[in-house]
């Protein structure tokens, strides 16, 4: 007579296989943490000493001349350049991106939506250096004919950044809007609201956390973007006074100068100090985004 299934046991070595697989998964998970820590340590080791001893000077000067005989490492212009580009680009990309997200999720027909989503995803897949090309070859002459002395300037950088962040904003924004229960829409419309009133008074408030996360991730992307801004901002260390002034960002400075800096020298360390600052900024932005997502799940 055969043993009933309930009285049988799996062969013992299954337990060992289980153990090995569990171990592998654990290693994979931990490795992510290890890499982050390693990056942090690496950048920190090269730059933290410099950052601690020079921070006061870096934050009080606009003069970044690391290769002079008496080098100065004033950060202010670079910080302002970064904030300038990111801020300007968000002024464009946030309204346009969110409006596009609203259009896709609420007003577009199904066929339009599918088509536009593919287009938006394609936009997201364009490499950053290609955006740089577009900035240099198309926006540059365009801005010059609009009255700029140099077409490679802060505005050019902001436009390119805006174009690069748009796909992210649109697709994350659309996700956030579509996560709003259909019943809210119907309830609002059944109360006599027009579609626009429904979007403005119900949908946007209901999706606000998700939309905020989309914007924050967009900010993170903008702050960290390097190649395109290096190519199109004009790369001049100065505080911009008009839209057409060239600027320079933290990321572009690192990318442009690290190759020429003497390994271990002051300049080299200063660039790593910039890296720490960038790391810190994106870390904070991501943390806020993460916190917002959590709050959304709880609320």
């Amino acid at each position, binding site marked *: 007579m055969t043993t009933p299934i309930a009285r049988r046991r799996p062969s013992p070595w299954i337990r060992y296989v289980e153990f090995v697989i569990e171990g592998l998964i654990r290693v994979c998970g931990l490795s992510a943490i290890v890499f982050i820590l390693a990056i942090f340590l690496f950048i920190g080791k090269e730059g933290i000493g410099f950052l601690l001893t020079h921070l006061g000077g870096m934050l009080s000067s606009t003069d970044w001349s690391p290769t002079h005989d008496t080098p100065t490492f004033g950060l202010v212009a670079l910080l302002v350049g970064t904030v300038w580009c990111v801020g300007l680009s968000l002024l464009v990309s946030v309204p346009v991106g969110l409006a596009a997200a609203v259009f896709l999720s609420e007003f577009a027909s199904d066929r339009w939506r599918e088509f536009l989503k593919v287009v938006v995803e394609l936009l997201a897949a364009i490499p950053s250096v290609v955006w740089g090309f577009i900035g240099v070859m198309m926006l540059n002459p365009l801005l010059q004919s609009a009255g700029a002395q140099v077409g490679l300037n802060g505005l050019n950088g902001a436009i390119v950044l805006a174009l690069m962040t748009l796909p992210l904003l649109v697709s994350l924004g659309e996700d956030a809007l579509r996560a709003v*229960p259909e*019943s*809210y829409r*119907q*309830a*609002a*419309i*059944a*109360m*006599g*609201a*027009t579609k626009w*009133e429904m979007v403005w*008074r*119900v949908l946007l*408030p*209901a999706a606000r956390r998700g939309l905020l996360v989309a914007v924050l991730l967009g900010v993170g992307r903008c702050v960290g973007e390097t190649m395109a801004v290096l190519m199109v901002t004009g790369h001049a260390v100065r505080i911009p006074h008009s839209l057409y002034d060239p600027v320079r960002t933290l990321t572009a400075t690192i990318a442009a100068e690290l190759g020429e800096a003497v390994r271990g020298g002051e300049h080299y360390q200063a660039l790593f100090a910039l890296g720490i600052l960038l790391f810190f900024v994106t870390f904070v932005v991501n943390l806020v985004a993460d916190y917002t997502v959590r709050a959304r799940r709880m609320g």
Partner: protein
Amino acid sequence: MDDLVRIENLSIRYGEKAVVRNVTLAAPRNGILGIVGPAGSGKSSLLTALNRTIDFVPSARVEGRVTLDGADVRSLDISDVRRRVAMVLPLPVGLPMSVYENVAFAPRMVGVKRRAELDEIVERCLTQAALWEEVKDRLNMLGTRLSGGQQQRLTLARALSTDPDVLCLDEFSIAIDPVTTMRIEAVLMELKAHMTIILVTNLLMQARRIADVTAFMLNGELVEVGRTGELFVFARDPRTSDYLAGKFG
């Protein structure tokens, strides 16, 4: 009889599938029309044709007509129709805003701005919906934080906030407890002095308790309609008496 809402030869199809077939039915002014029938008999679809929320369903085709005080609802402004024909759906929908704003939502949209006037509307509607006593101290709380039964009454208060001519309730009691259900039924009995109420329900006893006129629908057709007291006792059609006696459904 003085009928505020008339449904004339109404048919509704979703694509190829006919869900309402040639229904003619009227709801009396200052009365409660109960519509009963098993699931899938077209009761809810019929309701959505009244305030044209059926327009949400792209595949829906409507034939025949619905008149509100003699005017075809398709000839009226759509937002007006929805303000005049209020709808309470089976599951409560607290909008993601405060209790107060939930009720003030529709009045605000038509331009009511004075705080005192809004306060008055909010208190009146919440009182009518038997919710005022429970929420009067926390009007600023998010409506979605209320319990299910409270949210359903909030939905009712919101529906009343436009002072509608017609109040449609689609199985309003499936998500709430019997005590609250009875309280709302009592409220409906009072409200019918001011408006026409159309009550779709699976609870035969609910229709029997409060409906003045009851209609029985089956497979999209209107089988029979009559004064509630008579229908439940002397149904002419054997299908009606079988259903009302609980033999199927």
